[in-house]
């Protein structure tokens, strides 16, 4: 492996570790949170914020920034962890997560948080907003990208497919969408709640440049983000990321999968220690 590539990977890996640690500490503050999802998506967020996206931490509304739209608002704990790591939210605000009057509510809302570009929570909306943003950026002559993250459960929502069709129709090559396939939604495994495979073929058929990767393999995530950005054809770009809930904390990875996993009070510290142990092994 090229030395610079290896160094970049190591740098991004360290950020991914810090994002997981931030998320676990926020979970500890509230004694709850969508921590399994935060741990599964940490690698994707690390690559987005520390390999791919253009932004200015001191100026979250900088016109030239790439936009990141969190459609699955319950992943806010993960995005806050990334925004803290990126220096957009001060580290000390982590302690306020989910508290009254905090800028970091449990579900992501644009008016509350610097760097939060949309109000999620009502699932299946992010892709439609992303389409409008991508159209708006093109009209302004901006070369910024619109990234949007949504979950496999959101594939059940019809509006996702409206967004998919229109992004291709309008040739929105400034759109990069990431689906987190952790195969878990409120009522059980996503594939059993509403079968969504074969997903790659569906996305391709809808006109998207589509890559499917192991979302917890940093090399694969970096390569996919780079390819999405550099793809030469005038079409939107899709990254299907298969992820492991609880990734990085072995006892949470092994826990029975659930949309909202239970973590006992004493386990947050154990989780932080397990994460640290994994970091030292890496």
């Amino acid at each position: 492996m090229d030395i610079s590539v290896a160094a970049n990977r190591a740098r991004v890996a360290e950020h991914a570790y810090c994002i997981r640690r931030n998320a676990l500490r926020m979970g500890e503050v509230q004694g709850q949170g969508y921590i399994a999802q935060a741990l599964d998506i940490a690698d994707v967020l690390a690559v987005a914020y520390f390999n791919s996206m253009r932004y200015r931490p001191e100026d979250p509304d900088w016109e030239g920034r790439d936009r990141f739209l969190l459609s699955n608002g319950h992943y806010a704990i993960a995005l806050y962890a990334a925004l803290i790591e990126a220096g957009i939210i001060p580290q000390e605000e982590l302690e306020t997560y989910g508290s009254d009057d905090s800028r970091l509510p449990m579900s992501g809302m644009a008016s509350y948080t610097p760097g939060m570009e949309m109000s999620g929570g009502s699932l299946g909306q992010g892709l439609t907003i992303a389409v409008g943003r991508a159209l708006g950026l093109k009209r302004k002559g901006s070369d910024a990208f619109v990234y949007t993250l949504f979950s496999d459960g959101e594939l059940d929502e019809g509006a996702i497919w409206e967004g998919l069709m229109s992004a291709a129709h309008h040739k929105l090559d400034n759109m990069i969408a990431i689906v987190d396939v952790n195969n878990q939604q409120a009522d059980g495994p996503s594939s059993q709640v509403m079968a969504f495979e074969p997903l790659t073929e569906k996305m391709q058929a809808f006109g998207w440049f589509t890559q499917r990767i192991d979302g917890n393999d940093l090399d694969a995530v970096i390569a996919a983000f780079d390819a999405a950005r550099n793809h030469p054809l005038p079409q939107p770009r899709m990254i299907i990321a298969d992820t492991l809930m609880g990734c990085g904390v072995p006892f949470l990875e092994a826990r029975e999968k659930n949309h909202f996993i239970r973590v006992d009070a004493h386990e947050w510290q154990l989780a932080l220690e397990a994460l640290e142990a994994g970091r030292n092994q890496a």
Partner: protein
Amino acid sequence: MSTATAAKPKLKTSAMIASIAGEGQRTVAAPFGHALVKLAAERPEVVGMTADLAKYTDLHIFAQAYPERFYQMGMAEQLLMGAAAGFAHEGAMPFVTTYAVFATRRAYDFMHQTIAEDDLNVKIACALPGLTTGYGPSHQAAEDLALMRAMPGMTIIDPCDALDIEQMVPAVAEHKGPVYMRLLRGQVPLVLDEYDYKFELGKAKLVRDGRDVLVISSGIMTMRALEVAKALEADRVDVAVLHVPTIKPLDTSTILREAGRSGRLVVVAENHTTIGGLGEAIATALLTAGVTPPFRQIALPDAFLDAGALPTLHDRYGISTNVMASTIKNWLG
């Protein structure tokens, strides 16, 4: 048989594109489309978006004038609202069009969450408001105002005629934030130019004064109220008409002032179900202020409305000029 040769009576049509203009009434073609073209010349941030209904919301006029600022979002109202929100985030002022039923009933959460919650500068213009088509409940937005009134931060306009629409378009552009506009399309009656009237956002206007009855109305019901007032002159009934084109925020002070003038029957007339519209809004305002004149409501019933010819339906549900005039006369006793 002799009956075989007798001509069948011609049936009335339930055509969807029935104009609300009466026979011989003065009209203006596509006032919304033309006003938007004029606005767009002054405001480069204006874009037009629709969900496969440009031709039926007069947005095609804008699309012809500014093809590069017109965005076809397909027959997908949730996408329409979400994308308009995204566009507004990027500094544009989207005017989005569809039918009132599809915006309010089908895409409600998208307006609520993606547009209103973030106070975005999206202007939603919806044709076929209330009972303005005979096509049946799928297209009759009898409850659009009730739904939209319940949405925080939403400004709501119900214009009466072509003049109202022409003046409303630049006014809503001047207002920062989301707006829901009821739209009259095609050949739109022109009525208010005969009166000393100008549209002002948030203002109710006394279009005509009178001693016996105060009709408080919005939208096409103001046109009807003015016709009723003329008709009842013959019966020596003196009818005042207070036009309330802005449903939210409601101009409570003007309404209280006019309704508080003693000796008049107050009639709220609206092209909307009795539930949750102008009538209930005014009743709440009056009761809260302790102003309690005799009060009546002319509105659509709480029911799935029939299909049929529009004049037939307006008679059936009591919002035609003739039925409204006799209803008010009966109330006066």
